[in-house]
């Protein structure tokens, strides 16, 4: 049985944006007040989360992926097996990058910003905009 681990160095403040980011990566997350995480054999684990991606979407030997609210942000809960094999650091960074992109675009939209250019490249994404700021 692969133990679950919290990845506290990655935090997501907004549930809707996190759900959208997961969907952009091809996953179908569930949301609920206290969802049970299941292991790869269908065994219920002690861990609970508010946003969950079921193991069948991740890999044949995978465990559920969870995001638990700690009062400030959602923290990923990933099994050691998946952290090494499927939901690797590279995948976690891609989720974070997608979330950040959606968050920045949401922010600019809320500010009524005029987006002049979006450049995507090897290093990441650069967004150029004009924003009305009240000092």
């Amino acid at each position, binding site marked *: 049985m692969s133990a679950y681990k919290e990845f506290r160095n990655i935090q997501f403040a907004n549930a809707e*944006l996190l759900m959208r980011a997961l969907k952009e990566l091809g996953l179908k997350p569930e949301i609920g007040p206290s969802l049970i995480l299941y292991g790869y054999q269908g065994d219920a684990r002690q861990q609970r989360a508010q946003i969950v991606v079921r193991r069948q979407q991740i890999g044949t030997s995978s465990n559920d992926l969870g995001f638990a609210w700690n009062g400030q*942000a959602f923290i990923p809960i990933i099994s050691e097996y998946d952290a090494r094999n499927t939901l690797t650091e590279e995948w976690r960074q891609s989720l974070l990058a997608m*979330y950040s992109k959606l968050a920045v675009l949401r*922010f600019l939209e809320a500010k009524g910003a005029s987006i002049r250019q979006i450049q995507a490249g*090897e*290093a*990441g994404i*650069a967004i150029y*905009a004009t924003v009305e700021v009240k000092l």
Partner: protein
Amino acid sequence: MKMAVQIIITKDGQVSADVIGGRGDLCITHILAGLEELLGPADNTKLKPEYQFDTEVTAILRSQEVKA
């Protein structure tokens, strides 16, 4: 006041913002405060470059090659 803003999202998810010209030093705090609500708490490790915004960080971010 309308300000030109450049926001960079790196492949590992780090975000930084740069206000170009004008009263950038004052505007940047307003912009970062707004982003914080969506990106996460200030003690979030991944956000350090954003919240430690200063000349040095700006220079590093500007030197990153972003190919269209």
